[in-house]
């Protein structure tokens, strides 16, 4: 069976490698651990060993070519019996036996009423064909079976393998466009469903006056753009305030682990980035150790590499809290779905000038201020309302005080 040898992760900050020399050629026989190829990165030249014994089938990357971590380098036709790399074997598909003749069938799903009726009538549920939703045995099925009538005339419901209740299905109409899900889309979809299922989400919103942040940003904007080749956005300010608040509210920087809540030592902030391929969430590691300018740089770098697909798998893992900044227009506020296994996600709304009431010289006055709504979704398994509100309020305070050093 062919085995792909991928460029392994050579380190946390290593995202790519250049194939400098092939030590084998197509058709060569290789032993386990035999060096296959030299890959250079920086000041290191790494020989990648064969994970299996077999025959080199196809070399996929030419010498001199640079590829990201995880890219397949070569295909090896593994010898029968050669030990495969220890990737988790795919779980065997659950054995669904829709056929009526399968030996020793499990009792099929049945409605409670049908089950009671079957018991009273001494009918073995395993011998009854279900016609209810998803193949469930109904009261009628049992009654028909008990009265000795043959198979029901009604068309049986689709077998459980089809898996969808009728109300979830849609029959295609002329002119409909069918767009198959990409693997990333499917992953995102599964993750969203999982998160909503395991985690009771609660939302809370704060209105933040961004005057202070705007002032700081305007004061440093030009100098920053000269020092860096990108602009200073509002995102690093929000991230900076959030990591400081997370230090004070460790319960929001946590995971639920069976019967315990783990408050994490390290703060790694996931940043939701929309790319042409879909949603990815690269992670700014140890975000609390970075200055505002350092954060801006790290976020810019992650976003750029997310868009050019140059992130390593490691950079998409290990976040402890997520911030989503879904764009500026038509987005007053909204509640994001928590990125499991975290317990909170903060979503930035658009910044819009609004009339607000402030007390100036002892007088209430209506003034115009740039206002942003910050929406926090939190997992009520781990976090109660008071600390969640306290956390969000602290972020608001930090942003309004705007004591940021660049």
């Amino acid at each position: 069976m062919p085995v792909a040898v991928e460029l392994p992760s050579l380190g946390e900050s290593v995202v790519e490698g250049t194939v400098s020399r092939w030590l084998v050629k197509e058709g060569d026989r290789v032993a386990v651990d035999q060096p296959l190829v030299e890959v250079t990165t920086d000041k290191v030249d790494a020989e990648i060993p064969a994970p299996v014994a077999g025959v080199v089938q196809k070399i996929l990357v030419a010498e001199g070519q640079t590829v990201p971590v995880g890219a397949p380098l070569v295909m090896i036709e593994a010898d029968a019996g050669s030990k495969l790399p220890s990737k988790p074997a795919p779980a065997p598909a659950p054995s669904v036996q829709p056929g009526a003749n399968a030996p020793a069938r499990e009792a099929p799903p049945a409605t409670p009423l049908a089950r009671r009726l079957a018991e009273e009538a001494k009918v073995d549920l395993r011998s009854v064909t279900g016609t209810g939703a998803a193949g469930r045995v109904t009261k009628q099925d049992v009654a028909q079976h008990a009265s000795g009538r043959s198979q029901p005339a009604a068309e049986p419901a689709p077998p459980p393998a089809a898996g969808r209740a009728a109300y979830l299905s849609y029959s295609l109409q002329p002119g409909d466009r069918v767009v198959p899900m990409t693997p990333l889309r499917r992953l995102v979809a599964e993750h969203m469903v999982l998160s909503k299922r395991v985690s009771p989400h609660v939302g809370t919103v704060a209105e933040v006056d961004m005057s202070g942040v705007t002032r700081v940003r305007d004061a440093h904007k030009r100098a920053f753009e000269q020092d860096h080749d990108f602009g200073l956005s509002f995102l690093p300010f929000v991230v900076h305030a959030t990591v400081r608040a997370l230090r004070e509210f460790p319960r929001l920087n946590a995971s639920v682990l069976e019967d315990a809540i783990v408050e994490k030592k390290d703060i790694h902030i996931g940043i939701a980035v929309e790319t042409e391929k879909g949603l990815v969430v690269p992670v700014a590691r140890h975000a609390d150790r970075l200055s505002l300018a350092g954060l801006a740089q790290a976020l810019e770098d992650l976003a750029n590499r997310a868009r050019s697909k140059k992130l390593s798998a490691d950079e998409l893992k290990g976040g402890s809290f997520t911030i989503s900044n879904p764009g500026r227009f038509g987005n007053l506020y909204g509640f994001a779905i928590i990125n499991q296994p975290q317990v909170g996600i903060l979503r930035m709304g658009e910044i819009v000038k609004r009339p607000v009431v402030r007390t100036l010289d002892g007088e209430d006055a209506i003034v115009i201020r740039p206002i942003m709504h910050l929406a926090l979704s939190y997992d009520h398994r781990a976090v109660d309302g008071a600390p969640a509100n306290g956390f969000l309020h602290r972020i608001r305070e930090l942003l309004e005080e705007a004591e940021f050093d660049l």
Partner: protein
Amino acid sequence: MGRIGWREALEEQMKRVEARRAGAGPDTLLLLEHPPVITLGRRSDPAHLLESRASLAARGIEVCEAARGGSLTYHGPGQLVGYLVIDLAARGAADVHRFLRGIESDLVAATQELGVAAQVQPGRTGVFAAAAGRPRKLASIGVGLRGWVSFHGFALNVCLDPADFAPIVPCGLEGVEISSLARELGGSAPADLWERARAAVAAAFAAHWDAP
């Protein structure tokens, strides 16, 4: 190991790498000195070799190709070469950048012990004199990995003549001056600098790698 030819030292290293990979050998630091030799790393630009191989050979300088990262460099008498055969994965430190930064910090600690302030320069692997002015390079680093077992390592200029680097653009870094501990210390260099350097490097690496 004293003075030993580059190819011979490579053979010795690879023997130890294979033993380490098979679990039959320990992590090792080999400290030695090479007769004059220019080695080309995998990223070497041939244009950085400024003299013809024939002319170098006539002067007794060998040119070898090395399976290590980095560009080309010169080794010769007066330069302390350290080869590290370390199973990084076994130490739970399978990260090449962390490994490079570790070697740098060990060398900075060693040179400081000898009275030479040194520093690293972000983006340029190696160890540089900390004094102001044009960067002066004291040590070069280039590492090879077979699986997660390292080989090659570093070269610290103790008392070699920086002029020996003339035939090359060292490490492909233009505008970098080569210096040595002896030159940085000037008149205050002790007579037994070589022995002291050897001891300081051995101590710094032992403190780092033999720590429990």
